[in-house]
C-alpha cells in the first residue's frame, strides 16, 4: 500500500523509542504514585493550613508547562549545580514529581470520600490509626481513586513525549529523527500515533468501565 523507504532497522529504532517511552512512564508513574500517596495522605491528615506549603509546591507542577519544568531542572542540575546527570535521570525525576502532584490530588479526594462514620466505626472497634488506614480507608479509597489514577498514568505516558528536550530519545523523538531522514512524515506519524493509541485506548476504556461500575453502586 505504501511505497516506503522504511527498513527493518528503522522499525527497530522506533521500537527502541517506544521502549524508552514505556520505561520513562513506568519509572515515573511508580515512583510518582508512591510519593503522591504520601503527599495526599499527609495533606488530608494535617489539614489545609499546615499542608499549605506542600499544596503550593505540588500545584506549581500542575500550573507551568512540563517542557519548562524539564528545561529548568536540566539547567539547574547541569548549569547551576554542575552535576553530570543523564537526561533519563532528569526526565524521570521531573515526571515523577509531576505525577506525584496530580496523584496527591486524587489520593486526597479519595480519602476524603471515605465516610467519617465508617472510620469512626473502625476506630470504635479498637483499630489503631494504621489499622484503620490499611484495612478500611485504603481499600475504599482505592476503589474511588482507581479510574482517575488510570487516567493519570495514561496522561503521563502521553506527556512523556516531551522528554526529548533533555535528550531522551523516546518514541516521538525517534519518529521525528526518521521523518527528517526519510521525508515520510505521514506514514511515520501514523505509526507513532497508532502505538500510543493502541496502548491508551483499551486502558482508558477499562478506566471508564470501572468508573461507571463504581458509580452505579
Amino acid at each position, binding site marked *: 500500500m505504501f511505497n516506503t523507504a522504511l527498513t527493518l532497522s528503522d522499525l527497530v529504532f522506533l521500537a527502541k523509542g517506544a521502549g524508552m517511552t514505556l520505561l520513562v512512564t513506568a519509572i515515573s508513574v511508580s515512583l510518582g504514585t508512591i510519593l503522591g500517596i504520601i503527599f495526599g495522605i499527609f495533606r488530608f491528615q494535617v489539614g489545609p493550613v499546615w499542608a499549605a506549603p506542600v499544596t503550593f509546591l505540588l500545584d*506549581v507542577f500542575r*500550573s*507551568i*508547562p*512540563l*517542557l*519548562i*519544568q524539564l*528545561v*529548568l531542572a536540566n*539547567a*539547574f542540575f547541569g*548549569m*547551576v*549545580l*554542575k552535576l553530570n546527570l543523564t537526561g533519563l535521570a532528569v526526565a524521570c525525576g521531573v515526571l515523577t514529581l509531576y505525577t506525584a502532584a496530580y496523584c496527591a490530588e486524587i489520593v486526597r479526594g479519595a480519602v476524603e470520600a471515605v465516610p467519617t462514620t465508617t472510620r469512626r466505626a473502625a476506630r470504635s472497634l479498637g483499630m489503631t490509626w494504621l489499622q484503620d488506614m490499611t484495612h478500611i480507608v485504603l481499600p475504599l479509597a482505592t476503589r474511588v481513586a482507581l479510574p482517575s489514577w488510570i487516567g493519570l498514568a*495514561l496522561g503521563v505516558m*502521553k*506527556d512523556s*513525549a*516531551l522528554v526529548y528536550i533533555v535528550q531522551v530519545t523516546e518514541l*516521538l523523538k525517534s519518529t*521525528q529523527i526518521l*521523518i527528517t531522514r526519510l521525508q*515520510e*512524515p*505521514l506514514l511515520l*506519524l*501514523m505509526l*507513532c*500515533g497508532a502505538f*500510543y*493509541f493502541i496502548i*491508551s*485506548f483499551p486502558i*482508558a476504556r477499562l478506566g471508564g468501565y470501572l468508573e461507571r461500575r463504581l458509580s452505579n453502586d
Partner: protein
Amino acid sequence: MFGYTFQWGQAVKWLPQMLEGAWVTMEIAILSMLIGIAVAILFTSFRQTKSRILNGIVTTWVEIARNTPALFQIYMAHFGIASFGIHFSPFVSLLIGITFNNVGYLTENFRGAMKAIPDTQTRAARSLGLSAPQAFAFVVMPQMLRIAFLPASNQMVWAILMTSLGVTVGMNSDLYGVTQDLNSVTFRTFELFAIAAVIFYVITKTIQIGARLLAARLFRY
C-alpha cells in the same frame, strides 16, 4: 554557594518581550477554546442524531484527541498535513493542534454534562409548548453550562500549557518561543525559563481563580 552566578537583573531586561510573548500565548489559547467550544457543541448535537457517519466522526476525533499526545497532534497538524501539500504557518499548526485536543476533551465534558440533566426537564419544557431547539436552548443548555464550566476552565489551563509545544513546529512568538530565542542569544537558561515559569503560573492561577469567581456569579441557583 553555587559555582554559578545568577544574573536576574540582566534577564529581567527581557521581561517586556516575554510579556508580549505571553499575550500571543493567551491569544492562541483563547482562540483555540472559542473554536473548540463551538465545534464541541456541534459534535454534541451530532451525538443526538442517529447518523452513523456523524457519530463515527465524533467518536474517532474524540478518541484520537484523548489517546495520543498533544505534541503528536501538533506534529500531525504541521508535518502530517504538509505531506498533502498544505503548508501551515507555525501559528496555524499550533492553533489547529490545540483546538483538535480541546474539541476532544470538551466534547466528552459536554456529554457528561448532558447526561446529568434529567430527561424530565425537556419533557416539562416541551409540555409548555417549547419546540425541541427552544427546550434545548433555554432549559437544557444553561444547566449544562453550569456543570461543564469548571472542567472547561481546566481545559483552558491545558490550552495555555500546550502553547509551549509550538516551539517544536517553529513557533517563536509565543511565551515559550520568545524565551527560547532569548536563551539562544544570552544562554541565561535558568533565569529566563524561571521567569517564563512565573508568568505561566500567574496566567494559569488567574484563569483558575477568575473561573471560580465567575462561576459563583453566574450560577447562583
